[in-house]
């Protein structure tokens, strides 16, 4: 589908401040930082998680373990696809047993991805707690899921798409709202 930019919501400066606030909030609400682990959801959630990991390192000189989670095999719409979606790698090199997990994604929308991520995580063990951090919350939830940490709440219409662009993938940091061409 052809899309065009409807609005630019954040530039690199704004995003930097938001990342910093997210990192601080996560530390503030989790007293035992040595029990914390970050899990980023493939693919953009992983980069968001790396940024937060790096900021926490700069703030407190501690390295929070980071895992990568692919939720494809736990999607609720697998039987609906004509073609199977690509499976990406999951890499969690530590035990999640009794840890405080911060699950991280770039955008939270219907909540279905997070539902799949939760199912996937509980196959790996029993964490002490699970908290959700999303850089953008764009509303339209279809599941009882609410981020514990959010970068920005961005009311959108369903036909729009929120694009969190990151230096690591796109060569620049910005948040855009996209809409289909012809609107």
């Amino acid at each position, binding site marked *: 589908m052809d899309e065009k930019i409807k609005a630019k919501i954040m530039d690199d400066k704004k995003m930097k401040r938001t990342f910093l606030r997210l990192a601080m909030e996560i530390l503030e609400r989790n007293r035992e930082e040595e029990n914390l682990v970050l899990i980023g959801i493939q693919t953009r959630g992983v980069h968001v998680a790396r940024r937060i990991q790096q900021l926490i390192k700069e703030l407190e000189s501690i390295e929070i373990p980071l895992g990568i989670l*692919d939720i*494809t*095999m*736990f999607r609720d719409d*697998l*039987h609906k*696809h*004509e*073609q*199977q*979606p*690509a*499976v*990406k*790698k*999951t*890499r969690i090199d530590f035990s999640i047993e009794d840890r405080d997990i911060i699950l991280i994604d770039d955008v939270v929308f219907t909540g279905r991805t997070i539902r799949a991520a939760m*199912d*996937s995580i509980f*196959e*790996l*063990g029993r964490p002490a707690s699970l908290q959700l951090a999303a850089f953008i919350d764009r509303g339209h939830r279809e599941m009882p899921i609410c981020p514990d940490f959010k970068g920005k709440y961005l009311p959108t219409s369903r036909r729009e798409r929120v694009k969190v662009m990151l230096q690591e993938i796109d060569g620049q940091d910005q948040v855009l709202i996209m809409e289909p061409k012809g609107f």
Partner: protein
Amino acid sequence: MKERIFSQDHLLGIEQLSVDDIETILETAEAFIEVSSREVKKVPALKGKTVVNLFFENSTRTRSSFEIAAKRLSADLINFNSSISSLKKGEALKDTVLTLEAMNPHIIVIRHSASGSPHYLTTFARSSIINAGDGFHEHPTQALLDALTIQQRLKTLRGLKIAIIGDILHSRVARSNIILHQKMGNEIALIGPPSLVPREFEKMGASVYYDIRSGVKAADVVMMLRVQEERGARNYFPSIREYRNRFAINREIFALAKKSAILMHPGPINRDVEIETSMADSEQSVILQQVTNGIAVRMAVLYLLKGEIHETLN
């Protein structure tokens, strides 16, 4: 989320696959390796799907490998072990499959001594068909798991010299590997006695060697094939002893290959026939890694085919 396209409804052979298809299968398999390293080795990707293992030839490894793969994806699996030795090709096979299909499976994995039987099934079956070995024709999942193992060890699947040694004539593993490496643009050297490596294979783009030393020279991959006594391989050379003297792999000959070279074997191995025992257990041997990768590759194929029940054309 970007959706990956896999163009096939069935996996009949490497012949039907594009390079993109091969790469998609290998990438998916890489992702599935992690599942097998978990404490709970199960994901719900194929929940509610039924896979039938339909084996008309003896097989423990391939059948169990498909079984484990299907179960790790949460599919239900039925083993149909044919003891019907009088099963006639054609109609009887068709009836067996039609009966199974009446139970609405999604994927049928078939091994049969008649080349082309999986292709025949696609003319009337509604399920996705996976070829787990048909006669002397193809054994695509074996070539794919070999490719995955090569990629893991050598970090590439291109620009390689692949030496395949043994009974090429009767080997569906060899044939699938030749086709795959042909597609990847690799150099292929086939080595064995003239009776088992006919010059015909040069038409497939391979070079033929009757001397193991010149064939193995500078190879990146040395792939041994089993002497298939049950297929009458013994009739093609004077004695096992002579075969061993001329075509078995040992340290001295393996040293002619590249330093980084790996030794492969689809199993089961005949120690001290085609492969010297210390070689089979050496650092360069990837034989057990091949078995482990077999599960990931078969998970990938089961996942990508998925087995939507589709209407046939006829």
